[in-house]
């Protein structure tokens, strides 16, 4: 077990090293002069030179990369070109809304999608099943922001049930916080839910054709007990895997959702950074999000044993 954990941890470190090398070397690999692109159309030669120095582009690649990794390991993600503030500070200020949004979405999505997938599998081939599968294709096809505007149009503007935009911290009270996050969570979670529901259904169909399910049914267990205790638990590994992999959808979607709902989170920080071409921020956000993503999937890997004790590491 410990050997396995260490090996997986090692693999995770390699992946993160590749990510770091990649986001760093993009500055060198992109065609044209990134300093000139970042400086914009009205920049003087001085401006471009200043940015080049700031990004360290005037030094040899290895010197820069070494220095950058060294600072990274000390928790220094660099400084924003536009605001001159450390990227870690900027990200730190924006963490709460993004964590609130993604966590709430994650919880809602799993609570809805897994039961829906189970029901679809239990009623495979019926209209319920077809409806679920149809809705999931639809969910894959409507971009997050289009769905977000449809939700705002209906629930905020037409019905006036929920606030249009904005974010209120949890310290303002449960309802103000929640009411500002309901629509963003639905918009953000829809694709994720479709993804989880599909895989849950497929995994359940696999399990439901096993002999021990027939035995459980034959000895007269209640269908609900068979579905949850016997089938769902055995379908756990693919389901928890897809929940982990799908986090990528949440991260990508959060950037867009925060833009639509004017939530001042990390996604909004990223979008503002694009408009100002503030590459250090983008670099920092990619490293952070990829790190979180890789780490969650490591935990998912390690959790397999909870669902299937036969798995030995």
């Amino acid at each position, binding site marked *: 077990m410990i050997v396995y954990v260490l090996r997986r941890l090692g693999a995770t470190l390699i992946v993160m090293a590749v990510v770091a090398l990649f986001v760093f070397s993009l500055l060198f690999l992109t065609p044209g002069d990134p300093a000139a692109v970042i400086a914009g159309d009205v920049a003087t030669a001085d401006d471009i030179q200043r940015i080049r120095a700031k990004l360290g582009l005037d030094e040899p690649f290895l010197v820069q990369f070494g220095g950058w990794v060294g600072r990274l390991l000390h928790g220094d993600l660099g400084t924003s070109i536009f605001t001159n503030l450390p990227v870690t500070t900027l990200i730190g200020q924006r963490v709460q809304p993004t964590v609130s949004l993604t966590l709430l979405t994650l919880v809602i999505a799993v609570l809805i999608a897994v039961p829906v997938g189970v029901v679809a599998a239990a009623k495979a081939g019926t209209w319920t099943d077809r409806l679920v599968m149809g809705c999931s294709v639809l969910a894959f096809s409507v971009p997050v922001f289009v769905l977000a505007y449809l939700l705002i149009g209906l629930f905020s503007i037409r019905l006036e049930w929920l606030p249009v935009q904005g974010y209120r911290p949890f310290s303002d009270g449960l309802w103000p916080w929640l009411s500002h996050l309901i629509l963003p969570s639905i918009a953000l979670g829809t694709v994720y839910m479709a993804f989880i529901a599909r895989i849950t259904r497929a995994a359940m169909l696999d399990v439901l054709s096993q002999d021990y399910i027939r035995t459980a049914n034959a000895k007269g267990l209640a269908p609900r007990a068979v579905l949850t205790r016997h089938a769902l638990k055995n379908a756990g590994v693919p389901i928890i895997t897809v929940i982990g992999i799908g986090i990528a959808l949440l991260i990508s979607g959060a950037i867009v959702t925060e833009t639509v709902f004017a939530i001042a989170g990390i996604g909004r920080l990223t979008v503002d950074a694009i408009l100002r071409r503030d590459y250090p921020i983008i670099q920092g956000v*990619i490293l952070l999000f990829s790190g979180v993503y890789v780490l969650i999937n490591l935990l998912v890997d390690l959790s397999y044993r909870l669902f299937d004790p036969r798995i030995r590491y």
Partner: protein
Amino acid sequence: MTTAVLPAPKSASPTWQWFRDAFRRHPTAIVGAMVLAVMMLTALLAPWLGTVDPQTLAPIQRLKPPSGEHWFGTDMLGRDVYSRVIYGSRISLTVGIAVAAFSIAVGLAIGLVTGYIRWLDAIVMRVMDGLMSIPSVLLAIALMALTKASVGNVILAITLAEVPRVVRLVRGLVLSLREQPYVDAAVAAGTNLALILLRHILPNTVAPLLVQGTYICASAMILEAILSFIGAGTPPNIPSWGNIMAEARSLFQIAGYLILFPGLFLSLTVLAVNLLGDGMRDALDPRLARRM
């Protein structure tokens, strides 16, 4: 002497027969294919579909709701939204198809070689794992932030985000195909590596790649719209569905139609491609059809 004239067969041509069979078996896929065909025709025939120049400014006409004159209304610069949406289909389809073609070509080349050459495999797959752990929107954003906005760069950025998935798929296929007896036979007969890959392995990857290609096309169209929407995609002087919606960001409370129409076209096109992909997957792998 009289010659017997055979009556023309009652049933329609074989083509029509084939189409009816296909429709009965995969109705949603055929509907998807038809919608996609209509969208492609729309993109090709854009200048002749009652459109005006999508860039013509008419400040007096700004923010007019949909009417007989402007079917989809006008935007804040008075441009005709119907024309912009119709022309916008060109960008989405170009990006979707180009990304699918390029990422499959590149992913196939890398996947074939790494799947077959062991020592290369370890290195390439670590790189691919790294790339895959960056959410695709972020990966594309990083590239777009460092290059000038253009449709070509959008295609490049999204392709880079999609290639690792193709590599992984192809590599998996190659790993199982290389164990097949006919590959052993080819090796024993002294066939060289290139020929084994091209003649014995490559043909078996075509069907799964076709299916994967449609999904890549769908996700590339959504990604293009997302990038344009957050200002990191197609340059603003080219009408694309994402751009039209991006410009409407601050106006959606008073002019929701600016989001509705491009959003509808985009969703419909992506849905059509997804349905086509699902149908192709079911047709090519009947075992999976029941499950997914």
